[in-house]
């Protein structure tokens, strides 16, 4: 297991689960935790469940991806409360997490992954 993992935060349960299915296909050995919605049926993001996902992820360095603005705020708060090293990327959720997952699986360094992510950065 690599020491770098991924967390994915979406407002919707199915989006998070869907992306998880997508990237598991290329990154079976990467530690990935996803959080979607307040519950299976309620849309939203929660600070508590993000912190839980951070703690449950086996890796100490985490690359974090999110969908809309308020997810980022909860993510930033959870980051401040956690001892792990967490980097949040302002990139499209599907493309960004897919790139990170595929490259982590291939053993690419974090610096090189960031270089690739920079190319797809968006204003969020």
């Amino acid at each position: 297991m690599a020491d770098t993992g991924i967390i994915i935060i979406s407002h919707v349960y199915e989006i998070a689960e869907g992306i998880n299915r997508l990237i598991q296909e290329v990154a079976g050995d990467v530690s990935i935790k996803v959080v979607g919605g307040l519950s299976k049926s309620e849309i939203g993001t929660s600070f508590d469940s993000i912190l839980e996902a951070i703690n449950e992820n086996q890796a100490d360095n985490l690359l974090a991806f999110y969908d809309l603005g308020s997810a980022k705020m909860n993510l930033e708060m959870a980051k401040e409360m956690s001892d792990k090293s967490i980097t949040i990327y302002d990139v499209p959720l599907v493309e960004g997490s897919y790139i990170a997952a595929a490259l982590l699986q291939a053993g690419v360094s974090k610096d090189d992954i960031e270089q690739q992510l920079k190319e797809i950065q968006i204003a969020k």
Partner: protein
Amino acid sequence: MNVETGIRWMELFNEKVQAEKDYLTQLDTPIGDSDHGNNMSRGMTHVIEAIETQKPDSLEELLKLITTNLLSKVGGASGPLYGSAFMGMLKAQKEDNIPWSAVIKSGLESIQKRGKAEAFDKTMIDVWIPVVEALENNQLTDAVIDQAVESTKPLKAKKGRASYVGERSIGHIDPGAYSSGLLFHAMLEAEAE
């Protein structure tokens, strides 16, 4: 502000949020995701429950309890924003003899640090900024609060979910500004009792 007034403040804020829950959601419908009423209602219900079960006996304990409950239970963007506000107030309140205006100002600074909004971005801070100014001059009234809330109406949203609809956000009161207005109306009422 002492702990008794602080508790009364939260009780009155809760009453207003529950009474205006549908209106908050209505404000959030054209420019947001229609969840502000439910979110604030859920958050404040938890705050009141926590006050009843934990019975805080200092202002510090009360602010701590408000912070954790709003942060965890409100959800959406308002959870981290209101949570940060009370966290900022909690930090400032630890200083000896700090004026209440400085405590609220510290709350405002925490909101800005979290949400990165500037004045006139059509957010809750468009209420917090004039409220802090008025408090510093000992001139905070219900009218000042109402005017600040109303002033968000002609603005175009540059932050938050409303910014996704761009020009279409013009002409609507910002829901976070409105709920902040309720918070400060409740504060004035609690202080007057």
